[in-house]
């Protein structure tokens, strides 16, 4: 699904240049659930941005579902993001004046899907994350865990090839963190490829594979025994 060879990325600030990613080789097969770990400054965010086509790579090769991702113009990048990728952010990034279903339907809006189908699809996804009764609520009327579930539904809405989650539990308490991870595991069970950036060990161990980044290179890449989340019984 994802094929990366010898990836380099530097940032230039005036005369200083910062070599962030120093030759990363990485591949992900369909249906994997991968945790990307690393301390801050290890380059994991830059890596995720490049995976998410939010940033360009300097050197190397990036194939996403067999499509070479390089030197994309803005419009093309937007199309690929829309078609291939679903994003989940630490701070949810819901649009605060749009209701839950409108937020979920946004990727479909940019695909040009008509409003009625958009609404149906959005509601279906919201129901699948257990938010059926909240479709018309604004983000401000939802709890943190609910917001993240709306964001997950939004990431699923366009049926992407890969879901990228950037610290999806970073802003949540441990109980809701586990709920969110439970949801991510279930989505993965259905065959979706998911990459989770995290710095928490227990969250990482809920994935099937852990990749450690340090100083711009992968220092460890291990397949682990997945810890299944047993949702707390109320």
């Amino acid at each position, binding site marked *: 699904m994802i094929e990366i060879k010898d990836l380099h990325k530097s940032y230039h600030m005036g005369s200083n240049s910062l070599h962030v990613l120093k030759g990363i080789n990485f591949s992900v097969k369909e249906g994997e659930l991968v945790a990307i770990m690393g301390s801050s400054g290890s380059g994991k965010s830059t890596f995720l941005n490049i995976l998410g086509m939010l940033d360009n790579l300097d050197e190397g090769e990036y194939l996403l579902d067999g499509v070479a991702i390089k030197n994309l113009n803005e419009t093309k990048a*937007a199309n690929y*993001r829309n078609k291939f990728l679903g994003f989940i952010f630490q701070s949810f990034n819901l649009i605060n*004046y749009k209701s839950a279903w409108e937020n979920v339907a946004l990727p479909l*809006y940019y*695909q040009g899907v008509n409003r009625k189908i958009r609404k149906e699809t959005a509601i279906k996804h919201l129901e699948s994350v257990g938010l059926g009764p909240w479709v018309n609520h604004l983000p401000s009327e939802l709890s943190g865990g609910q917001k993240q579930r709306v964001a997950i539904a939004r990431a699923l809405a366009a049926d992407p090839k890969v879901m990228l989650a*950037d610290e999806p539990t970073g802003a949540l308490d441990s109980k809701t963190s586990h709920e969110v991870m439970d949801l991510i595991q279930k989505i993965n069970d259905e065959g979706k490829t998911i990459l989770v950036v995290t710095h928490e060990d227990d969250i990482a161990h809920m994935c099937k594979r852990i990749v450690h980044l340090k100083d711009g290179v992968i220092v460890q890449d291990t397949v682990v025994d997945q810890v299944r989340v047993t949702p707390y019984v109320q």
Partner: protein
Amino acid sequence: MFNRDLWAEIFHSIKSNKLRTFLTGFSVAWGIFILVLLLASVDGMKNGFTKQFNDDATNSIFIYPGTTTKPYGGFEAGRRIQFDNDDIDFIRRSFEGYYEYITPRFTKSVTASFGSETGTYSVRSVNPDHQKIERTVIDKGRYINDADIRNTLKVVVIGKVVADELFKDVDPVGQNIILNKLSYRVIGVFSDDGNEREERNMYAPVSTIQRLYGNTRNIDQIALTYNPEFNFAEAINFSDNLEVVLKRRLIIDPEDQGALYFNNYAEQFSNVSNFTTMLSVISIGIGMLILIAGIVGIGNILVFIIKERTKEIGVRKALGAKPMDVIQLVLFESVFITSISGFVGMLFAMGLVALISPIVDAPAFSNPSVDGITVVTCTIVLVIAGVFAGLIPAIKAANVKPIVALRAD
């Protein structure tokens, strides 16, 4: 492009930011308000000037004799020029088809009395054409006619003020009035749109006055109107020709500036037209400048809005919004706010003008109004203004980097 969802997005963003939308719109509404008011004011001034001229026919030429300033043809400088009836006949003969009406005119101060009432007024000696040139309105009776001239009848047409002052409640028409100890019969009463002073005059047949006072054929002024089908250049040309011919006839140096005075309304009217056109241009200029301030204001506020919405725009781009989608969103919002608030400003201005217009009727300012052209122009200006105001912020928004926008704060 004009799909329902885009509008829904725009309404969403306007609805969720009512205050800043209001502030944004206000500057434009204000600009248009002032622009429309200025244009209406200029329109009012134009109407006022035109009305002033309407007192007299706008195609009038008045010729006054003066004193020669240059020796010519055996005469010394300083000779007084005197017109007489033959000069009128000469113009009639020589300029057939060029003039419309022509009349001699000279004014004499008289003491007038009726019964026990006495007053001092002016009598103008004229022929019937004068009514058309001065645009005299007859309220009662009739004006001087050709028979009065031919038979040198002692008749007068009196102004409304004269009638009020001397005759009080008596109907003046048919009464006898004493002018400088001679008895005249009042044949009509006139009023004048121009001003009240005009209504202190009386009109008498020129032949009668010439015979009674000095038995001369002398006249002081010649008033005429040129063919109304003439354009400005033709009118000026005619008046120049007339001057040359009259100077030759009266033996005046063609270069002499003091011997004859020509007062051509075409020239004055054209001056006034130029003046009001200039005013229009200036007021449009000022209005536009104010509007530009409004546009810059909108642009400024939109830039801040974009900054405020950077995160949202970043999210949208991460979810697949193309640069064009973002530009459209900002641009349409800008055009929408500008147009709506501009129309509000325009409606307010038009309402104010409609309210004031009937009240204001000063000599130089009357019936200010807003015409269709102004409305159409304003609309076009507003849409363009909206595009300009939104352009820079829109491009700025399109260039938002999702990674920068999404960086967890």
